[in-house]
Every structure is written in C-alpha cells, then in structure tokens.
C-alpha cells in the first residue's frame, strides 16, 4: 500500500486540566509521514510539541480533559484501540520514542545493555542471550562499542547515553522513531555525530523519524519534511527544501530570520512579543498579535490552505490556495 502514509494524524486535540483551567496544548493538528521519511516538528517551548510526541505514543498525562482526533498507522485507525491492544500492536512495535532528557532517566543501577534490551524482553519475550546479541548489533549501528553493554549509565558520557536511549528505541525495529529534543543538551560535535548516526540508520534500516526540536539548524541535518507549531497548532507543513528556502507563514519567516548563522554576516532578528497563553488562546489567528503582516481577516481563526502539492499553511495570506 504505497499510497497510505505510515502515520496519518488528523485533527488531533489534547486538552488537560491544570490548577488554573484547561490548557489547550494541542488544538487541531494534522500531518502525515511516509516510510523512510524524516519529519521535523519545530516550535518554541510551550507550543505543544512535546505534548504532541506523547500524544502520538498515547502516553497521556493523568489530568487529560479532552483527547480526540484520528491516528492512522498504515491506514488503520488506532484511536479506538484499547490501551492493551495499542501497547501490543503499536507502541514500541510500530512506533517507538526517545523522550526528552531520556538519557538522564536511565536507571543508574542497571547495566546499560540490559536496559536497552528491555523492550525485546517485554514485547518479544526474547531470551536474555538473544536480546543481548541483538542489542550488540544495534549498539554498533548507533555508534557505541559493544563493550559498553556491561557499563552502568554513570560510566557513559552524555553522548553515549543519548546513543544508548536511541538504541533502546531501535531494538524492536520499529517503522517510526519519535525523538523529543534528542540533541539539545549535547555539545556541537556530539550533536553532529548523532545526526550522522541518524542519517546512517535511516539509510540502512529505512526507518522514519519524527524529530521534535527547537533547534532549526541541527534539525536541517536530517529534515525532509518540516512541521512548524505555534500555540498548539500546526502553522506550516512543508518539504524541508521549501521551508528552509522560502518559508510561507509569517511566523516561519520570522523564525528563520531569527536563526543565528555561522557563515552569514547579517545579524539575526528577534520576534517581538510572546506566544499566547494556552489557557485562554485568542479568538482569531494565534500569531496575529506578533505578526507584521496582520490584517482584518486575522481576527477570525485562519483555515489551513494548500499551496502546491506538498505544503499547507494556516494563514489568511495564503487564502488563494485550496482549502484543506
């Protein structure tokens, strides 16, 4: 079924209760990702991108008030799955995840090899020996020597630990790995070598990646598709080539201009103002308040318009495009 995307997300909404009211962390997010594709979800902190990662894995916070939308894996709707069925058929089988700061969440008293092999023992019921052999293979893939299997987490550097949690996401050979800020706590050289490892894995295993990050420069190392989030919504979804080359949404443009570039002379600009409070987002376009191209239509919530074949933008400026 070449035409069906690996994962299709339609109108995903997730609201949760907090002390001060209902936080609309995800408010109608739709996108899809194909096999062997790398999608980068960009956004500032608090835009809902980490919530998105957890929602895709159905790891919901306890105070969820509303969770709706469609999550199709290979065209199969999984929202109706029971937790048990989702765990058995999807989570860590089809889609696995590297959580934010997961490298600091490794159990300090269990050897790294055993922790990385854990999904194999749980999801596949493999023997310890089988699991160890497979783990050693995956270690090679992510660029850690098999000697490290017997080490404890504190004996590994940050980069090594990050590779180990990546290995943990890969041991079950999922079709899709979701990574939440996988390199943001790491040094430049380590970041680069982990991005190299991701490229290699994508080539060799054909895995798809969703990379959730605020680091535009590093994300460009792997991005084929880019989804930009703002205040719980997807404002632009496009091919990396188009997004980096010619961003369409006013927010995308400003964001790209704010990136400091090593090899360019121009001073980066900054985006004035602050993102809205998700407890009580504004009526119309959520970016309108900070938008330099704002006009009267922006008082109404913009629809998502399609530009060309592969790009959608949630902005009235692109109303010439076809509606989605």
């Amino acid at each position, binding site marked *: 079924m070449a035409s069906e995307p690996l994962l299709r997300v339609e109108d995903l909404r997730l609201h949760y209760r907090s002390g001060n009211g209902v936080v609309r962390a995800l408010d109608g997010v739709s996108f899809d990702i194909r096999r062997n594709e*790398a999608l980068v979800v960009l956004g*500032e*902190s608090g835009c809902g991108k980490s919530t998105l990662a957890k929602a895709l894995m159905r790891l919901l916070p306890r105070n969820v008030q509303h969770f709706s939308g469609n999550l199709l894996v290979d065209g199969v709707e999984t929202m109706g799955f029971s937790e048990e069925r989702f765990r058995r058929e999807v989570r860590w089988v089809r889609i696995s995840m590297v959580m934010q700061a997961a490298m600091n969440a490794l159990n300090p008293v269990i050897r790294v090899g055993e922790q990385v092999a854990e999904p194999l023992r749980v999801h596949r019921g493999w023997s310890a020996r089988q699991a160890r052999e497979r783990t050693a293979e995956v270690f090679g893939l992510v660029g850690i020597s098999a000697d490290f299997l017997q080490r404890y987490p504190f004996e590994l*550097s*940050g*980069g*090594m630990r990050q590779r180990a949690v990546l290995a943990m996401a890969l041991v079950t050979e999922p079709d899709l790995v979701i990574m939440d800020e996988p390199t943001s706590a790491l*040094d*430049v*050289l*380590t*970041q*680069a*070598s982990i*991005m*190299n490892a991701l*490229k*290699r894995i994508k080539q060799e295993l054909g895995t798809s990646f969703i990379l959730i990050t*605020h*680091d*535009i*420069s*590093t*994300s*460009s*190392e*792997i*991005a*084929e598709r880019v989804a930009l989030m703002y205040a719980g919504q997807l404002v632009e979804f496009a*091919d*990396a*080539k188009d*997004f*980096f*080359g010619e961003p369409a949404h006013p927010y995308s443009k*400003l*964001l*790209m201009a*704010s*990136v*400091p*570039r*090593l*090899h*360019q*002379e121009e*001073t*980066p*600009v*900054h*985006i004035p103002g*602050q993102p809205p409070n998700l407890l009580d987002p504004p009526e119309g376009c959520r970016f309108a308040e900070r938008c330099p191209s704002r006009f009267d239509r922006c008082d109404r919530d913009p629809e998502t318009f399609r530009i060309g074949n592969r790009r959608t933008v949630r902005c009235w400026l692109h109303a010439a495009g076809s509606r989605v």
Partner: protein
Amino acid sequence: MSAPARDIRRSAAGPVLSARDLHTWFELRQWGFLRVGSVRAVDGVNFELQAGEAVAFVGESGCGKSSLARTLLGLHQPTRGEVIFEGRSLGTLDARERKTYLARVGFVQQDPYGALPPFMDVRRILHEPLIVHGVRNRAEREKRAREALEEVRLSPPDDFLSKFPHMLSGGQQQRVVIARALILRPAMIIADEPVSMLDASVRVEILQLLRSIQTNHGLTLAFITHDLSTVRHFAERIFVMYAGRIVEQAPVNELLNHPQHPYTQALLGAISDPDPDNALQMREVPPGEPPSLLKPPAGCRFHPRCNRMIPGTCDQEDPPEFEPRNGHHTACWLYR
C-alpha cells in the same frame, strides 16, 4: 606550559582584566579526606581583556569555561596563577577591596529562573546588591532599580518592580538578571551562557541587549558560550577552549574564516546553518570525546582525536602559542 599571551591591541591604559598562568583544580577526595586526584578544570590559561571590548570564550561542556568564569569572579580560588583586575591581583585584595571588586564585575548566569530568588519580587532583587554594598537610602535604591530596568528595556518599571520571577517570561527573567548585574555600575560583565536556556526567538534579543549595553557604557564583556554561531554578532574576539586550555584566539571574522587549530576547524565544520542540503551529506566529526580532566593526555590535549597529529611531538610536548597569522594565536605544533 604556554607562554603568556601577547596582547593584541594594548591600549595605553593596559588590560582591564588578565589571567596569568591561571589554574583551577578541584581536589577529588574519597571518604572525605583521601586525595585521589584533581580535576584540572582550568589548566594554564593566559589572556588579557582590554577595557570596552566584548570577547567570547567558546568551548564544549567540560572544557573549563564555566570554571574559568567563576575563578574570574572570585567564586573559586585559583590553584595557581593569578587574576589581575585593573592592575591588582585578586589574591592580594583584602575583604573590603574584594567586595569592591565584586561590585565592579557583574555576573549573568545561564538559567535565569534559577538565578532569581523565587521568593523575592523584582524590586527586592534589584535592591539586594545595593543593600549589600551599603546604599542605605531607599529612595536612591529605588531610583537605581528603575534606571536598571529601563536600561534592560523592561519599561515602564512599575509594571515589573512588584512582579515575582515566576510571573515573567524567560526573556524578561534574563533581563532582570542583567539589570541586577548592572545595578552596581560595573566595569565588566561576565555572562555565562546567557541565552542557552532561552527560546531561539528570544536569544537574539537578549544578546543584542547585552551588546548594546556593553557599547553604550564601554563595558568589558566576557561572554561564555558553546554556540559559535551566535558569537559573530556579539563579540569582537574569540577564545576557543579545549580541556582546560585556550587553544586558539583571534578576532571574530579572522577566526571564523581562517580557523587554524584542528579542533576549531572540527567545531566549525560540525555547526550547521539551516539548509536542506545538510541532510544529503555526513558531517566530518573527530572521533572520540574530550579527555578526562582528571588525567589529561600528555602533549597536546587534542592529539588523540586529531587527524593531523605529528607523532613524537604532539603526543609528548605541550604546544606553545604560535601566531600563524597576524593577531591570530593558536597552541598547535602545526604552526611551528
């Protein structure tokens, strides 16, 4: 040991701050008394900062840049060597002079939320340094607090004075931190990763603010960062640190366009600008990881990862500082 850095543009006034053969080692003890070694966080650093210039210390985590900042601030005692501020060595200051020194050097930290006491409002936060330095008059303190807030463009100050840190955004918090660093009217500001915890869209704003304050007041700004891509716009001179030492120093454009040290070259090679073509190629990354500061390798500290290592030299002898290009210094045997 590298020779003291030759000054690049010595003004008549001389350097405002300099480090001579500065070492900051942390003793590691077992059972509380058994010495098992020392972490050589800063291990032989020399530099001179001229009044009114903005410099950046760049390096990866664990290269000793934060320990260097804290040694300059007197928060760590140097194990060897000295820090000289306006002609006087910090080690020779008495308690009162030391306090005066602390007022002359402002400190901006990495984590703005952590850097502000959560139980104080902005007014109290800004009054505190003044109280500590004996400004008894409340009206005077209030006036200076307002000035400082205006300076960091938190205006009108009345909107912010009675706010608590948690009511401010990350960018506003960092502005308060900067205001606090300015309130004692320092001659120099040391900023340790001032934007790494902030959102990308705010970073530029804060850096521009720091830079404009620096130029308006003729302050010396020492800017400690791991992010080479921002320094171009906010510093004039760059010091690249690796494993407790300065391996290369040069004016910004010179360094970015003609990196000499293999480590600097690797660092620049690993930094991407947003470009869809990045995904098509692998980046060249030196193998391995920075050495343990407990037992650094003999000779050049980068030699185990260096692809241009000269056997018999780099792995045995410490490289002194060379000047392969005018005003461009590097500690590498390649430029012997």
